[in-house]
């Protein structure tokens, strides 16, 4: 059934697996790698909950097939936290600013914002809003999310 091998690095760990060609990167990360922090909220590239970094760039992992990640370095939300459990500045800020409720969309927001602040460390509020507009949240009304990203930017912690 069109199986292909894929080799990539996920959160610093080298992986090699045989997968169906049609297996999405999101399913590969969740099921083959056991990294269930990457969530599937729509599977058609709109909600952003499955956002991961591929070679440092934020992408929708539901819109990539695992086989396309051959040779890539992938970072998921789990990979943003220090091994000792210390939260990343954005992870801490989401907590401090009440930037989450049910938490389902949160990994996608944090991964997206991590890439955004790396490229644009001192954004305006409007730039933050535009950067995060590709992630959907249904609980918070986005208030705490915008504040969290702005607070990290203001402190230069991105």
């Amino acid at each position: 059934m069109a199986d292909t091998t894929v080799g990539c690095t996920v959160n610093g760990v080298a992986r090699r697996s045989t997968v169906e060609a049609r297996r999405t990167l999101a399913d590969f990360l969740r099921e083959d790698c056991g990294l269930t922090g990457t969530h599937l909220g729509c599977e058609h590239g709109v909600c952003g909950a499955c956002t991961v970094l591929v070679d440092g760039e934020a992408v929708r992992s539901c819109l990539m097939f695992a086989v396309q990640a051959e040779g890539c370095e992938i970072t998921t939300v789990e990979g943003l936290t220090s091994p000792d459990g210390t939260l990343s500045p954005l992870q801490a800020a989401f907590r401090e600013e009440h930037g989450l409720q049910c938490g389902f969309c949160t990994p996608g927001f944090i991964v997206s914002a991590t890439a955004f602040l790396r490229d644009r460390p001192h954004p305006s509020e409007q730039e933050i809003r535009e950067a995060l507009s590709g992630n959907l949240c249904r609980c918070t009304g986005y208030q705490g999310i915008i504040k969290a990203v702005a607070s990290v930017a203001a402190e230069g912690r991105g």
Partner: protein
Amino acid sequence: MKPSAFEYHAPRSVEEAVGLLSELGDDAKVLAGGQSLVPMLAMRLAVFGHLVDVTRIPELRGVGPAADGSVTIGAATADTALERDAGLGRTVPLLPRVTPLVGHFQIRNRGTLGGSVAHADPAAEYPAVVLALDAELAARSVRGERRLPAAGFFDGLWSTALAPDELLTSITFPVWSGRCGFGVAEFARRHGDFAIAGAVVGVELDGDDRMRRAAVGLFGLGPTPVRAGQLEKEVGGRPVTDCDAAQLGAIAVSDLSDVPSDMNGTAAYRKRVGAAMVARAWSSAVTEAQQARSGQEVHHG
């Protein structure tokens, strides 16, 4: 929401890719950024036995100057690369200016210029830029290379002049010089959505503030992107002060047929918004051109 099974191919050269397309026929589909194709596969609205991933072909990526002063961009160049390219802001300013309007940044990190143009969504920005600037498209197949003018390339809803076994390899954009200005305006329900209607405008003024040339591309206003030919003809040689933006907007949409009607608006609504977008894009293009003094190189943001 999981796609049907397919065979995956990752050719490393254009030659290999077009060989696969030729061999596999209609059951094969080119996979570029996949940001439009993969959702259709996931919903099983599209089913292919083979996907030919062209993002591993180095020669399809990058922005390079051509000998005649034009700029040639590899079809598999990511949208983000256009946004970040330092030179494009001076040479083909419309490209970096429309790019932030293409979806969201996570989409632009995977989406490609050629993928968008070959997908030919009538509400997308890049096809309208290609059409407005009279870009030239290079296509390869096992039968050789063809160079296609933008005019006529978009020949129907999600349809282009590319043959089924052809791969879009690059797009060449002319570089405008002189007192030029460019403008982009679109209206979408939400930031990052496909536009209900939009316009890209390029103008060049002579030393007397007369219109030397104007190029206006419309999107979201038909089954394909559309060139506002009547408008372009009317303004030719006219003093810029005689060109009323609102009037030009009305002219641009006056002879449109096949304007779509859907839950986001009737054809009449889209034309109304389209006219306003032409006016807005026109005004900003003209302002920019007027600020450029004669004989000086324009530094486009």
